[in-house]
């Protein structure tokens, strides 16, 4: 089984969110980058589990600058076989998906896995876009993934519930909670990662569809109004007359 796992970086969840250059850029000062949790905990670990049971190869791919090699090495240390970095600023989801699809077209993958979403842009766009480029079925928000021969069985979140589906490879899947458990890389993995192949390729030049122009922080919350725990009538009164939500 030949698996491609799409890895993006995201700021550590406790990072302070601030912007610079006239609010046009995310302020990276002091920000620690991690592998986007959905990509690492679910997509990558499930890919490794499949490889361990049925054999195959796990390639990770990222669209990013040379600075992103730290997160690539982390993913290699967890156990991916080889890595590809498309050397470009990931300006928007369409750009990222088009670059990854171009690479996937040249290499036959049975499974292309993405995370549910990046925790910085939360777009949930890249997986569906790759699938359309490759004209493949796409199963989004899968919480279970099993393979028997060329049939992939998945459990997926649907509006108000869950469904189990079957689809033949090749297929694109976005991975959510439940699919696997986080793995901590061990010393051997970290040593091995240093010498695993990392191919850097130039991006294809494509037209830009969207652009992030400016960022804005939400208005500071006004101080919390404290209510006497013995007087819930006053809370109900405020929710009705002041907040107007009931």
């Amino acid at each position, binding site marked *: 089984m030949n698996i491609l796992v799409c890895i993006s970086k995201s700021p550590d969840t406790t990072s302070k969110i601030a912007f610079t250059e006239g609010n046009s850029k995310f302020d990276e000062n002091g920000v620690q980058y991690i592998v986007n949790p959905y990509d690492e905990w679910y997509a990558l670990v499930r890919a490794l589990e499949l490889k361990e049971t049925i054999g195959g190869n796990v390639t990770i791919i990222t669209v990013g600058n040379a600075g992103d090699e730290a997160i690539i090495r982390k993913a290699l240390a967890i156990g991916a076989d080889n890595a590809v970095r498309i050397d470009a600023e990931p300006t928007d*989801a369409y750009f990222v998906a088009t670059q990854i699809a171009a690479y996937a077209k040249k290499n036959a993958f049975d499974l292309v896995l993405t995370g549910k979403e990046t925790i910085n842009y939360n777009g949930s*766009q890249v997986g*569906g876009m790759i*699938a359309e480029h490759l004209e493949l079925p796409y199963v989004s928000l899968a919480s279970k993934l099993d393979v028997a021969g060329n049939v992939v069985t998945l459990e997926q979140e*649907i*509006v*108000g519930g869950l469904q189990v589906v079957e689809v033949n490879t090749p297929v694109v899947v976005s991975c959510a909670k439940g699919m696997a458990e986080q793995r901590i890389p061990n010393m051997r993995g970290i040593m091995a990662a240093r010498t695993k192949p990392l191919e850097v390729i130039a991006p294809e030049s494509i037209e830009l*569809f969207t652009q992030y122009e400016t960022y804005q922080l939400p208005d500071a919350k006004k101080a919390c109004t404290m209510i006497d*725990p013995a007087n*819930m009538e006053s809370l109900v009164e405020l929710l009705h007359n002041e907040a107007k939500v009931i």
Partner: protein
Amino acid sequence: MKTLVFINSNHFAAKASLEVITYAKKLGGEVVAVTYGSQEGADQLGAYGASKVLVDNSLTVADEQQITKLVASAVESTGATTVIFSHDLVAKAVAPRLSVKLKAGLISGAIALPETGNGFTCKVNVFSGKAFATVSVKTDIKIISLLPNSIQPENIGGSAVVESFNANVGASAIKVVSTKKPEGSIPLPEAELVVSAGRGLKGPENWGMVEELATALGAATACSRPVADIGWRPHHEHVGQTGVAIRPNLYIAAGISGAIQHLAGVNGSKVIVVINSDPEAPFFKAADYGVVGDAFDVLPKLTEAIKKFKNAN
């Protein structure tokens, strides 16, 4: 200018559907809706601004690849220049596909109407609700996926023509083996009022208090991640960064500390009420109303007060 709105199969009365029709109407120009399945009730969309509803009756179930073809074919036949989705699980798979198919820029998770004075820009949620971004679209056709609960549906009393529309989308590559849908409960992402509880409730046997408050309010129930992880509550109730992100009008949190990863899923709520025995709980910083007290004591009192209020109104 024409705007095409995708409506999930047989969801003509759903609030999310009425929101996207209202949103499309506010863009100005003609609004056409496209859907599949039964056309029963499709004309109700007229009251919110759709002049026409295209229904592909040849499909009863459809996967996202088929829905993409359906919407693309409706764009072609209507000449629409803007396509609107409600940002739900179906749209999260269809809108990106459509973006590639039509070579149209996608704004995913919009929370406001676009600005068209200088180009075409729209505001979206980023960094798990901790910031907003303004995104511009450069392509001729624009796709917007609107976050639920970002606009109030407005009944303007029009009427819609319902037409059958066959997009010949072909067979599905995905076979549905089984589906599980909990009966009766309000789906969390659509709920306007949510009552949520965390580890402070001590055990699953104490959730009766939470459910009674939710029932009194007509609210959905939610929980923090550890509570779903230990199995006190079902996973679909887990809100936060790794769970469901919600933005109800009212979020009541009892016995939840307010960790940043929890806040990421709920900080879009219009009003937050926090009930916690620890006055130092971080959640109070994100709350509009706070009650320092024992949830076992406060929740039943609040339920009583709500019941009294409902009876009087």
